[in-house]
């Protein structure tokens, strides 16, 4: 299932393949044509298999998959840290796969930056020099880049740690440095490769909150890789489920929970916190505006069930569901909410 973007997409991925092995190009041709000699390339590893998606400006697009599903390879294809075997990756209308070395470097210096699973910090540089790294390779003068780096350090809450070495910081703090380093170049697109999976659960939660806080003001276009479905639900505007190098389903958290396309996706959404994902609009019984009395309590279409629950519980009759203009679209009742919550 492919979501057709409504806004202008800033990143488009079309039929991207990555095959590891001796003759990846031949293997791709054989697999693509479905010819009989595809078996000759059995020792090749198809990490990414014809993936297409697009990401809107300001959107957080999460790719969720278990280990070995090809998600880390996919995100590396987006800035050509791994060279895709076939396909097209468009960033702001330019195909990055046809770029020369210099052009690609410019793209990495200005447009796309990345946060890594194992932080990828430079152990021999102080925190401030780590954060300023992207500006340094760009050739920006020492004073200017240190000032910008100082601002980023403040932004991620590490004020005063600039002169320390990375190894003197805890894991969560190190990843804040990684985040600051990525933000320092003011990129249009942020790539996150499982940035929080090396952290322990409490710190992970804290970092997710931090990212949500930053995103609420920065609104950066982000591609976020994770193997943790709960994390995907918390952070993603849309989620793509990846398996064996292919996208199984792409949709908003709510779409995945309500309409899983396969047993594979269903297995993930089974334990999803439905009250926090589902909205009043998606489970209401639609009815004409006049059907429900306007004097009773109302909830908005986008209200999460978590918040709608106490209102429905306190009110015996149906609860109206309204849009921003307070026009009623449908109604909720206790049975409906309870049914939606316990449906497994």
């Amino acid at each position, binding site marked *: 299932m492919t979501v057709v973007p409504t806004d202008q997409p800033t990143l488009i991925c079309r039929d991207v393949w990555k095959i590891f092995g001796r003759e990846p190009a031949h293997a791709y041709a054989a697999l693509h044509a479905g010819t009989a000699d595809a078996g000759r390339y059995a020792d090749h590893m198809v990490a990414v298999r014809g993936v297409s998606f697009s990401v809107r400006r300001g959107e957080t697009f999460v790719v969720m998959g278990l280990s070995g599903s090809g998600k880390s390879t996919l995100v590396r294809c987006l800035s050509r840290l791994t060279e895709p075997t076939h396909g097209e990756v468009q960033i702001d209308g330019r195909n990055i796969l046809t770029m020369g070395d210099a052009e690609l470097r410019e793209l990495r*210096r200005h447009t796309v930056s990345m946060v890594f699973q194992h*932080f*990828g*910090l*430079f*152990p*021999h540089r102080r925190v401030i020099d780590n954060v300023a790294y*992207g500006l340094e*390779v760009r050739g920006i003068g020492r004073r200017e880049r240190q000032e910008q780096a100082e601002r980023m350090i403040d932004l991620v809450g590490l004020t005063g740690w600039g002169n320390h*070495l990375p190894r003197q910081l805890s894991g969560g703090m190190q990843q804040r440095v990684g985040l600051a380093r990525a933000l320092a170049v003011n990129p249009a697109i942020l790539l996150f490769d499982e940035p929080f999976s090396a952290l322990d659960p409490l710190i992970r939660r804290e970092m997710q909150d931090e990212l949500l806080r930053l995103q609420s003001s920065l609104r950066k276009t982000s591609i976020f890789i994770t193997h943790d479905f709960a994390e995907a639900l918390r952070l993603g505007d849309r989620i793509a489920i990846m398996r064996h190098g292919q996208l199984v389903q792409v949709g908003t958290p709510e779409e995945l929970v309500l309409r899983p396309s396969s047993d594979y996706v269903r297995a993930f959404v089974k334990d999803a916190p439905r009250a926090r994902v589902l909205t009043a609009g998606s489970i209401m019984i639609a009815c004409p505006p006049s059907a429900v009395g306007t004097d009773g309590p109302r909830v908005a279409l986008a209200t999460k069930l978590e918040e709608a629950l106490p209102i429905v519980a306190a009110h015996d009759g149906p609860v109206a569901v309204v849009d921003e203009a307070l026009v009623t679209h449908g109604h909720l009742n206790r049975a409906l909410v309870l049914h939606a919550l316990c449906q497994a």
Partner: protein
Amino acid sequence: MAIRIPALAESQIGPRARLRLLTWTTLLIVLILSALVWPAEARRFPEGWNLGLRGPVDAFQNWTVANRASSPIFTLFFDPLRGGIDASLRLVENWLLGLSWLSVLAIIGLLGYLGTGIRLALLCVGGLLLAGLFGLWEPSMQTLALMSCAVSLSLLCGIPLGIAAGLSPPFESRLRPLLDAMQTMPAFVYLAPVLLFFGIARAPAVVATLIYALPPIIRLTSMGIRQADPSAVEAARAFGATPRQLLLRVQMPLALPEIMAGVNQTIMMSLSMVVIAAMIGAGGLGREVLVALQRLNVGQALEAGLVIVALAIILDRLSAALGRIDLAAPPETVRRDVLAGWPARAFATRQDNPARVQNLQRFARVINAVLLLAIIIAADAALFHLGSFPADWRISLRGPANAAVAWARDNLYQIGGLPIGTGPLSDTLTIYLLNPGRNLLLDWLPWPAVILAVAGAGYAAGKWGLAAICASGMLLIGLLGMWTPSMDTLSQVLIMVLISVAIAVPLGVLSSQSPATRAVLRPVLDFLQTVPAFVYLVPVIMLVNIGRVPGLIAAVLYAVPPGIKLTELGLSQVPAETVEAARSFGATRAQIMLRVQLPLALPAIMLAVNQMIMMVLAMVIIAGLVGGAGLGLEVVIGLGKNQTGRGIESGIAIVIIAIIFDRITQAWAAYRDG
């Protein structure tokens, strides 16, 4: 030589195992039969089958000698190179000898203080004082000068080559066999060609040291570049670093610990060439040892040897410590010490540019050390004029050492007319071990049977590929015309290895179990590993007869320390949980050792055996110098009588034996490991 016994490797005695048992029994019977029925006069390799390598090499040598003055290769390349090396060596030497002894002590002491503090500083100063007190100040400075030239040249060539190898795997794989050859080829073998190209003097000594010391810096630099944290390298690429930015600001700084380890290795390797370099005119401490060896003056050799040990310890600790100095550490973590304070700190407080203040504070220790040194040198030049080490400050070990050895020779050689003592021991070793070993390989087994047996060992360790390598290697030795000396050497090497293993493995086990043993052994092993073998050769020669035994003892003394250390290391790396599990089931200490620790440590112990074999092989030539005959003698004759062809043939034979032993033991260890 430990070979996996195939019949026991199979857990069940099935038809396959029975077939194998049959094969090996047949092989054994064939060997015995061949020893019985083969015509006695044809048991050595046929002399007519010879590749004739000697002819062209000697012809080349003659051409070189005739054309040294006229050929452009010499006038345009080797002579200027030699001149350059000579000039820079002279420069360093004059500078070191021109400085007063106090200034040299101050330099070394300050380096030590910057490194890890006052203890290292005292160690450095004490070591150099020893050189002065033994009256060896001047030779020590000569040796230091030669070493710093050889080491600088090694780093100058080695680091760029290592970076290239680290960045390009194809280049690395092309370089590797060359490095292997440089490390296994005995230095004596390339002394002759080096002499041909550079003439006799100190330049060829620098070049020979360079050849020997170059491989570790190349290998370690390349390893450092290759193993630089991949996530940091990927991050740098992701931020758009150019290859040059990546190398200079990320890969090189990350590889720094490995590069410094390479510098340390290179220094130690070049120090171990001191005596050999003296054989082609290097002078310095090596010459002192050689002169003492010729005069059988134990005390003189011991003094020079101790100074070499002191230099080795100083340079080892210093280079290790300098690699660890963290100049980029944030100001608050810099240790507060004498050098960190005034005047650099005071100067820093008067600056108002924060970046400059920070730099001044960060490098305060270095700045202050340089200032202090400048003051000492200036004061010496203007006021004290101390010059060379005072001649009347002396301590002497010569008298007591010589007296002790003389007493030992008079009283231990044969104790009270009984067949006990070092003399009878040496005769016993010769009659009951060395002679039968040589006879077995030379006179009892015909040459095809020897090749078959070595190939069999290769097959047992690594299947047909290795068997083919072993067989063709042995055949090549025969075709080089080196069969007879090789069999002599091979029999000695096997016995040396057996004795070394018999001593090292039990001691390694003991020292892994008892901290007390370890504490006693450690300094002895460290001493044996740093003192040049030539030094302990002198008393050994005096106590046993010239012949194959002194070489055997020297080889065992040389090979046992790494054997003990590696065995102990292997045992200590057995996972503690496994040992704990065995103990929780009520196993006794002996059961844990025999059933758990030793089997698990077997691959590591096999690598220890491998190392011991390599060390023994390195002693083949030194053994040849003191009557060990075999390939060692061939090399020595080749060098001494200017027969380069003969020297190279025998050198190749040593390398072949080394490769065969190395491959067999490595394959065996890898098989057990995987």
